[in-house]
């Protein structure tokens, strides 16, 4: 239902359980502005799934059009994936990591929407790459 919520907010978003996308609908597919990889830290499988899917993403997407969304962070006691493994993933793929709890999905959806607006070029004066580098710099401090 989080995804439905995002879908209703981001009217153009699409969901896939894993990559690569099926090739038979390639000609109908709209432009992709942003790929959000969702990782449930309660499930190691979701991390593995994201890791294998990343291999199918074109390198140019990592210049600001990919972000990782780690969910379930509010309950560290039930975590199956270390948070610094996800941070490392973000570092390796030069992409920002958002940590969230699905109970406060409105705030997360708004952040994603903002990132999407930037990635799609709807915010004048900010490019996806510069925005992502800004976000990455903010982790170091």
């Amino acid at each position, binding site marked *: 239902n989080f995804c439905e919520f995002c879908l209703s907010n981001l009217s153009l978003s699409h969901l896939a359980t894993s990559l690569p996308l099926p090739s038979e609908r390639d000609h109908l597919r709209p432009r992709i502005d942003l790929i959000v990889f969702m990782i449930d830290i309660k*499930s190691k*499988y979701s991390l593995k799934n994201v890791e294998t899917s990343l291999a199918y993403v074109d390198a140019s997407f990592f210049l600001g059009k990919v972000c990782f969304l780690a969910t379930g962070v509010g309950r560290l006691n039930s975590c199956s994936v270390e948070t610094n493994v996800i941070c490392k993933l973000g570092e390796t793929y030069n992409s920002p990591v958002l940590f969230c709890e699905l109970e406060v999905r409105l705030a997360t959806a708004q952040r994603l929407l903002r990132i999407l607006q930037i990635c799609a070029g709807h915010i004048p004066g900010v490019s996806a790459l510069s925005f992502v580098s800004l976000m990455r710099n903010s982790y170091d401090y």
Partner: protein
Amino acid sequence: REKQGLRRGKRERKRRRRRLLPSGRPPQRWRRRRGPARGLTGGGSNVFFLLFSPPPPPQEIVDPQKTAFLLRKAWTLYSVTPLYRFHRARLRDYARLLSAFIAAEKQKGLAVEVGVELDIRVTVSSIAELRGSEQDQPAVLVQLSSRSRASSRSSEDKLVWSGCFCSVFGDDLSENVLEGFTCLPLFLTHGAESYTSMVGRWFQKTFDCCFRRLAISPLNLSWMVAMWAGSKLDRAASAVELVFSVPRLLQPLDISYAIHPEDAKELWDTVQKTPGEITQEEVDVFMDCLYSHFHRHFKIHLSAAKLVKVSTAVASAHCDGIVKLLHSQYFLGVLMILTELAISQIQ
């Protein structure tokens, strides 16, 4: 800020790499030493590493009788912040005050005289054998027993509740503690919850400490099963069992995955590179092997389920923070990892 960063770095390193107590030996004492970095960060920064000191003198060998009470019981885990003004010389006074407190709680509103014979007898004792190194404070055992009024005085009291404060290689915490505080970060209880809360309230009031249930994350459970499945055991060991709970179903579904202990050990031996030391990568490989074997047979991704319980011949642990120590040789190792978890919860 730099200091904080250093400490965080140290803790992260520690989490990714753990050392084990060597099998079948009395507790080894570890010495912390500062030394030059070895290929990790290079340059002049300091890295902590652990060294084994010479074997302890024979009188320090754990007396199995003194710690046997810990074995084969389900212990509920709590983390405790350092106790303020806890004096080991006053254990007898504490026992008297605590038993009066319990009696008062039981008959709220009535005055209770300190020191008279009460239904619940409290003993507070120090167990010097139960600690990891000399930096650790000796454990404190609190026992509640009820007297049967009908029978004669000489008849034995019945133990109704016990709680044990301990610290096994909890150097991380005791190094930085302020004067006047006693560090016993791990609290294990066995018995009725009502007594746990009474004893907890008294300690909280008397020593200004704070208790919190210590849950064990699936990540730490997988550490434990890898550590324990690889332990050498003399006698015929019981099966290694992992219990998973499948999330997001209308009816709860648990999957139990039992492995022959020799198979588990054989698998672990092929995974582990340096004996006596475990890394996160090795734990991941071990678990992935078990998951893929299960998937081959049942087409179920166990990695998508939540690991809720592990049991081996060494110990069993539930994610709600309930632990059973099963092996007299390895209980210090088990308490060491639990102390580490308790410290990370209160820091």
